[in-house]
């Protein structure tokens, strides 16, 4: 079966000033390759600064890679011109870590989920309202919150709203960039369950970027570990996270806090 997303040798360099005279290039991504099968979840794990968010932006066509290719449903996205890329955008959506800064706090919940329809010029006005309310239902946000400004919603409610917005254009792939990290533990569990349910009912594919390995082990089918812009290890989630082969994976696992072991004890699997 053709992967939904295939990333081949992706590179992204940023110019960085080395000294007063020399500009060097900083490689945020270096020869990154992986693929995601339809209706599965790939967790991308790595430390801060490893390139995870840069990769998310490249896949969502919000950054242009300096080298390599990205194939979405077999189409080479990197070779498309701007206009054709724009047509593809609705299929790949992003949910960010901090709903407080990714959602306008003065807009109402309804405004937020309707915005994609307006930008893409879809549906008539009454249709948009109906569909917007249906999206709120999908993420179990009570309709009575529809008219409330986003600033008044709780963290969990805001994140549900961000997911509803991501669903508006019926995407195939959703990139979740640390989407659960800022939430309380009990709320993380609720949102994780929502994501699993949506994946099954809507046939969604997820790229789940996180440094929470326990959540990655729970949600993901496959895991790719990124370190300094390179994928150092990848494979089935449970296998990689229980028997890691690369030091980067091992040290992330060792650093993951556990309820019952002192972090100083050697981790045994």
């Amino acid at each position, binding site marked *: 079966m053709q992967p939904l997303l295939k990333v081949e040798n992706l590179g992204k360099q940023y110019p960085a000033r080395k000294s007063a005279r020399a500009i060097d290039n900083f490689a945020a991504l270096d020869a990154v390759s992986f693929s995601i099968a339809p209706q599965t979840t790939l967790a991308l794990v790595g*430390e*801060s*600064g490893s390139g995870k968010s840069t990769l998310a932006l490249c896949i969502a066509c919000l950054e242009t890679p300096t080298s390599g290719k990205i194939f979405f449903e077999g189409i080479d996205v990197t070779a498309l011109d701007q206009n054709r890329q724009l047509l593809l955008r609705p299929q790949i959506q992003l949910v960010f870590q901090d709903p407080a800064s990714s959602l306008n706090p003065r807009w109402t919940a309804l405004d937020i989920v309707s915005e994609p329809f307006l930008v893409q010029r879809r549906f008539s006005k009454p249709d948009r309202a109906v569909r917007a309310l249906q999206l709120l239902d999908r993420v179990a946000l009570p309709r009575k919150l529809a008219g409330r400004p986003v600033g008044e919603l*709780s*963290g*969990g409610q805001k994140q549900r709203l961000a997911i509803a917005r991501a669903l508006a254009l019926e995407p195939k792939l959703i990139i979740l960039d640390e989407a659960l*990290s*800022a939430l*309380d*533990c*009990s*709320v*993380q*569990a*609720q949102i*994780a*369950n929502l994501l*699993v349910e949506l994946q099954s009912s809507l046939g969604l594919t997820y790229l789940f970027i996180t*440094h*929470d*390995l*326990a*959540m990655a*082990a*729970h949600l993901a089918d496959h895991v790719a570990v990124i370190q300094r812009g390179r994928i150092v290890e990848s494979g089935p989630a*449970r*296998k990689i*996270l*229980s*028997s890691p082969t690369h030091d980067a994976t091992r*040290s*992330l*696992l*060792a*650093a*993951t*806090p*556990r*309820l*019952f*072991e*002192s*972090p*100083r004890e050697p981790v045994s*699997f």
Partner: protein
Amino acid sequence: MKPLLEVESLHVSYSARTGEVCPALAGVNFSLNPGEILGVLGESGSGKSTLASSLLRLLPANGKVEKGSVHFEGKNLLEASAHDLRKIRGGRVGLIFQEPTSSLHPTLQVGRQVSDVLAAHENLDRLALQQKTSNLLASVFPADADRISRSYPHELSGGQRQRVLIAQATACSPSLIIADEPTASLDPTTQQEIVQLFRALRQNLGLAMILITHNPALLAGLADRILVLYAGRVAEIGPTSRVLSSPQHPYTAALLRCLPSHLADDGAPRKPRLNIIPGDAPDLSLQGTGCRFEPRCTERMEVCILNEPAPVVSGELHEVSCFKFAG
């Protein structure tokens, strides 16, 4: 041993613009011994940040301590003069609040920001100030403290900024540090480094800490005791290992069950659903009777609807506020 900090019957409320008074903390009691680390475990709306602010009277204008006392080193902070409070904040008590990025001045070098704390509390000449600042930064940045000293906050990583805040908080050799979500938004490796740093500070400086977080796993290797806060009330308080391995309060038990299971590959099929706590965090503006957790509690009884449970001893140094244990 005389406790370093004794909080008794603390009640704090906020007034809304409409004039409505909303209770944020109701009857919080706990004490802290010198060199002890108390973890305050609470989710959004539990009152944890209110607790941090109210201990040193840093509540916003619409916040008010309705009653109670906070005795620190024998002195009731709630009755202390403004002059005494200024000396205590940053001096005897170090504070580390959330969001290192917004706690640091964006256009001052971090070395200067650390020496400012010293200058505010201690009478040091320029040379002594420089030396002490240098030592402080070296204690949190074992390598390249000099380079870090000359950096601006935006040039540092999240973990480095957090270390600067820790240097500021420990500058005047306090006996207590209050840290509110000090490792939120840091990746696991950096989190571990900060945890090791806290352990070293406790060991080397005999520092007591109140560590506020919503992440139970963070407290596992660090806190001596855990206080579980729910809806502004102490649900449970006890030794860390006991609270985490045999939680007494239904909220604590439900919260710990929500966590994705341990990473071991035990061959069990992946559970499609995590356990959740049904319902939402309580709306503190709604005055109610009875136990605040009752609407979401799977073990609720008749008595829980009308009455609020008082704390009851349920084990060694372990107290829980729940009718399951009363009488």
